């Protein structure tokens, strides 16, 4: 008699459970040395639930199918010169930021989940972490392939991997992940799985993918669709981690709360790059950062934390400050890049009249009062042939590593300065959130590799700006500076002239 086909649940149980055993040659604590020191108490690993019930054989089949479709679209995008169909040459800068700032984080996430998968002794989370690890590796690969078409024609892409490790502002996302990966496996799972993938991911993924859709970038949109089913699995893993930890032991709550507070604020700071991309870099805007924050954090996050209240978990500390900052963050960040355009790996520009009107409409409380005058002043200076550059290096926050350009809550005319002392040295922070994180772990953050200080220590190729840019592998005059007059703009204008001739 032929064997009966197994049901999904049975099949999942057979292929993912009972794979582990109690070791006898070595004590379990020696084999899994990382999953106790953080103070998290697990009484029963078998309580881990995986709502997706994905098994490895199905994983391969499913992913292969998706990628066949993605690569078919990428081929047709290349053959049809899809790069000529985007809304405007400026759009390309948004994907430069994505490739240099975000794609390498996918790789870091791959490493991080591989590590968590190895070091958590329960088989359920190990299987889930292993699959997410593979997802993240596929994501970095497919993103690089997707965006490679742009690298054939535009500057700023070629050295993305090298730049991620060296360029001053890319130390912001890089150090964020270095922090998570050098924490214990449970903190990593809460940091990346919950705080980033669950609470904040919609503020990263949706803006870039909708931005691509609105701006005619079919390649990146298709990547987004292809990754969507993975992302929903990642979100499920993130929420499962929280529920599992909080259900296992009441002593876990204060530890988890501290991590949620820390990683919410860390994530909020990194997302400032996305805020600026949405409000300033997309030629066709999707929505404002403030609107995205309202939908994806205030509303969706509010409902989530209401749901988690039954475990005693509260809304992350300083969520109210982050919400208030949504009125300012994109403007303050774009100002940073405008004045340091000579050291940026993408192009900058001043917003047009039409864009400023859009910003006024989206930011009625702040834009006209605090930021429009700044752009008008810079525009006048440009007209007079005195385009504004900041020729000094900025003070950086020791925790988030962003130039200390954020203002006091409630006072947009005064920079927020915070500081702490540790072992006789002073450390500076952009906010109470970043100061708290340092004060909780000064041993860790006093080791921060701050790009500005490293330059002055002589560790970044030399003492002058050209030396440092050479060390970044930055192609000066092509990768950096304003959009107007860039080789990117020239090739775009040439394409458009040609198209008009053909059409005319």
């Amino acid at each position, binding site marked *: 008699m032929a064997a009966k086909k197994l049901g999904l649940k049975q099949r999942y149980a057979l292929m993912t459970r009972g794979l582990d055993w109690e070791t006898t040659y070595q004590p379990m604590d020696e084999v899994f040395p990382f999953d106790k020191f953080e103070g998290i108490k697990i009484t029963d690993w078998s309580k881990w639930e995986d709502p997706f019930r994905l098994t490895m054989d199905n994983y391969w089949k499913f992913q292969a199918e998706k990628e066949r479709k993605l690569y078919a679209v990428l081929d047709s995008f290349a053959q049809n010169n899809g790069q000529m169909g985007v809304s405007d040459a400026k759009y390309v800068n948004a994907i430069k930021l994505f490739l240099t700032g975000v794609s390498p984080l996918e790789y870091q996430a791959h490493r991080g989940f591989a590590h968590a998968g190895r070091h958590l002794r329960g088989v359920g989370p190990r299987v889930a972490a292993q699959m997410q690890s593979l997802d993240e590796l596929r994501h970095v690969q497919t993103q690089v392939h997707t965006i490679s078409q742009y690298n054939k024609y535009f500057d700023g892409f070629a050295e993305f991997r090298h730049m991620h490790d060296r360029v001053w502002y890319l130390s912001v996302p890089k150090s964020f992940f270095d922090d998570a990966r050098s924490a214990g496996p449970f903190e990593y799972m809460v940091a990346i799985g919950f705080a980033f993938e669950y609470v904040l991911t919609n503020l990263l993924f949706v803006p870039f993918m909708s931005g691509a859709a609105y701006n005619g970038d079919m390649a990146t949109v298709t990547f987004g669709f292809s990754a969507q089913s993975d992302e929903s699995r990642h979100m499920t893993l993130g929420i499962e981690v929280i529920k599992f930890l909080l259900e296992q032991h009441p002593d876990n709550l204060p530890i988890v709360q501290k991590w949620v507070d820390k990683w919410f604020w860390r994530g909020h700071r990194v997302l400032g790059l996305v805020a600026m991309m949405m409000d300033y870099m997309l030629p066709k805007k999707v929505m404002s950062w403030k609107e995205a924050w309202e939908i994806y954090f205030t509303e969706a996050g509010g409902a989530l934390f209401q749901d988690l209240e039954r475990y005693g978990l509260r809304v992350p500390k300083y969520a109210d400050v982050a919400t208030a900052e949504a009125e300012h963050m994109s403007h303050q960040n774009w100002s940073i890049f405008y004045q340091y355009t000579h050291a940026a790996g993408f192009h900058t520009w001043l917003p047009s009249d039409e864009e400023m009107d859009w910003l006024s409409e989206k930011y009625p409380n702040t834009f006209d009062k605090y930021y429009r005058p700044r752009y008008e002043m810079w525009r006048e200076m440009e007209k007079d042939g005195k385009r504004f*550059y900041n020729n000094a290096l900025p003070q950086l926050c020791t925790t988030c590593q962003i*130039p200390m350009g954020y203002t006091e809550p409630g006072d947009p005319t005064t920079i927020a300065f915070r*500081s702490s002392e540790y072992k006789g040295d002073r450390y500076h922070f952009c906010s109470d959130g970043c100061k708290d994180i340092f004060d909780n772990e000064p041993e860790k953050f*006093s080791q921060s590799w701050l790009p500005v200080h490293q330059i002055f220590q002589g560790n970044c190729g030399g003492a002058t700006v050209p030396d440092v840019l050479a060390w970044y592998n930055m192609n000066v005059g092509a990768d950096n500076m304003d959009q107007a007059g860039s080789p990117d703009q020239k090739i775009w204008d040439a394409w458009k002239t040609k198209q008009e001739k053909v059409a005319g």
Partner: protein
Amino acid sequence: MGVVSLKPDYEQHIEIRDRLENFHGNQIVYLHWEEHLSFCAAICFPLPPDMPFGAMVENVLKPHYAAHPDFEKVDWAAVKWTVDNTEITPDMETSLADNGVGHKSLIRFWTPGLHGYKSVGTC
């Protein structure tokens, strides 16, 4: 308080990267012109601790803020200074160290009557 680490002696193995001795005889000093936020953040310099305060103003501070349209209107005698949040009246002849400026000190200055472009305080 303190980092939770795998090994109890974590603190013995850390490398504090911004120690004074790593800056080749200089100390890090941050300068910030209040209400002129077209300079997005305080600016950072490695300076010898024995540099006179006045030399710092003339040779470091002024050239880097000169691009601002308000710069020419500054009445330098009226400028208000703080070092690490303490108000000071700097002695221009004596050193940064003598004026209380240490490694990673923050010098903020206000220029009375000047609040940036259109007096908005953010430009």
